């Protein structure tokens, strides 16, 4: 396995700001050394609590924005959904608090050299890393459409600034509280006409559905997955999922170093949570 090692660094980062955005907290961290090397799709792993916390494991967050310069010598921004005890703790940090951050981690969205017609699909906070991707795609003269879905309005992350980086933005909520009532996949026709590539970040179910749509339309879907991670840096093998390699062999690959972005076609969506029959090294 030739893991894409990003040469992450570990650094105590000061919280610059923490603002509420709907159901989420938008944290900006001074992260010189990390921020310069961020590519869209990368994530960071943040430790929780003080040195006497009972929570040992880091929590992973997709990088929303990063600036390599500025008054704080480089910052990164993350969008945190308070969920369990760890993400809740991180979501409550105040300016001047420090967070220990390891990053940038994981692979990045592949950017085509030539202009393309791209569809970016985000579920919940999954839209966050798609905005910087949109920026870059637009700089390359691509056409960027974005579709964002969530259960309810406050879980839609689509800030005004973000809207400037896309040509179109469609929104769907399951309860219809904003945008179209329904799922994000209801927003575009299954044929994906006029789309060359789909980039997606969100829950596994959404990624799986998009992959199926992409397959029918013959369009590649780049999926950023979210698997439980104990280390985030390739040491522990907890974050694996079954992915077909180029030779057609299914392997359990680490989503923290060989992902989190995978070609939707390659991921064995139905096999997640199992060892699919025929997997390399499967028990006989």
């Amino acid at each position, binding site marked *: 396995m030739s893991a894409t090692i990003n040469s992450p660094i570990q650094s105590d980062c000061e919280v610059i700001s923490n603002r509420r955005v709907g159901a989420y907290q938008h944290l900006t961290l001074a992260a010189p050394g990390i921020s310069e090397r961020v590519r869209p799709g990368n994530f960071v792993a943040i430790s929780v609590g003080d040195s006497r916390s009972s929570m040992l494991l880091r929590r992973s967050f997709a990088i929303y924005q990063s600036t390599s310069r500025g008054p704080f010598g480089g910052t990164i921004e993350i969008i945190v959904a308070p969920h369990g005890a760890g993400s809740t703790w991180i979501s409550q940090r105040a300016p001047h608090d420090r967070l220990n951050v390891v990053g940038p981690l994981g692979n990045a969205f592949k950017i085509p050299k030539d202009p393309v017609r791209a569809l970016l699909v985000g579920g919940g906070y999954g839209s966050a890393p798609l905005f910087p991707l949109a920026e870059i795609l637009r700089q390359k003269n691509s056409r960027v459409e974005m579709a964002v879905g969530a259960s309810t309005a406050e879980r839609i992350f689509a800030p005004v600034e973000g809207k400037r980086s896309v040509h179109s933005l469609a929104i769907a909520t399951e309860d219809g509280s904003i945008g179209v009532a329904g799922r994000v996949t209801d927003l575009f026709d299954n044929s994906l006409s006029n789309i060359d590539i789909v980039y997606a970040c969100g829950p596994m179910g959404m990624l799986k559905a998009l992959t199926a749509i992409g397959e029918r339309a013959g369009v590649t879907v780049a999926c950023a997955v979210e698997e439980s991670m104990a280390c985030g840096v390739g040491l522990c093998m907890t974050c694996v999922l079954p992915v077909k390699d180029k030779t057609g062999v299914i392997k359990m690959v680490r989503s923290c170093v060989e992902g989190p972005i995978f070609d939707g076609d390659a991921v064995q969506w139905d096999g997640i949570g199992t*060892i699919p029959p025929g997997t390399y090294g*499967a028990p006989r």
Partner: protein
Amino acid sequence: MSHEVFDYSTTLGSAHFPNPIFTASGCAANGKELSAFFPLTDIGAVVTKSVMTNPRSGRATPRMAETPSGMLNAIGLQGPGIDTFLREDLPWLVEHGARTVVSIAGESVDEFAALSRKVRNSPGVSALEVNISCPNVENRGLVFACDRASAREVIEGVKRSVGNSLPIIAKLSPDVTDIVAIAQEVVGAGADGLAMINTLLGMVINTETMRPQLANKTGGLSGPAIRPVAVRAIYQVHAALPNIPIVGMGGVLTGNDAFELVLAGASAISVGTATFNDPSAPVRIKNELAELLVARGFTRFSDAVGFAHRAQA
């Protein structure tokens, strides 16, 4: 602090290490990823993920759960198999100057023997760790390390294969009624050292799904939660077998924690789960432990090993 006069080296059988801080098997993959955080040559040794004969997919996910001051894992020994390991991973470590302890795991006595033969014939290995905390498929899936006879047979088989060419370190499970008895058994069978402790068998039930959190239901408990169990096991075994070097592990997060295990009787310390919390943990702990030892007036690391058995209140 005058580190110049401080001798940090340690010895496991015929193997010498410039310092006693190792990684723990399965917590550092095969070294490559960790080298982003520090030069592997800085620590005493890299202990590789336990490798089996054939490639292994490991178990289904979820493979882990966070627990109070610890975690559960059920990786299921995912790995490339011994041949790929020896062709790709080991040479990379040797090339990068890392002292390497190769950890092997098998499902039968013969598999262990065959694996150890292959490792013996590979250049650049400092010691062989025999992870006997695996189910014995030939004996109702009973874990080798939980049964005196099975534990003995594995180490005897490995000893026959390896002779004195490599120090043999038997890795023990704490999930036994009498760990001293198992230690005596494997030492009798030819083990040159002991690694302890492996994880404790545990379970987490997800109260949302109301099912076990891990796909495998049970998993191994590691991290600071188990440190008192590790200290006790090391202390008991060192008391019974004072001349057998012990690679101590179990919840070491700081130099002070490592010192506890050293005082109990560990000649080297593996850092496992802590590395997930802090990828620089092995070097940090190495430095913290050295400071502590020097502050306590030790001029040689080896003088501190098992000191809690000797010191008076």
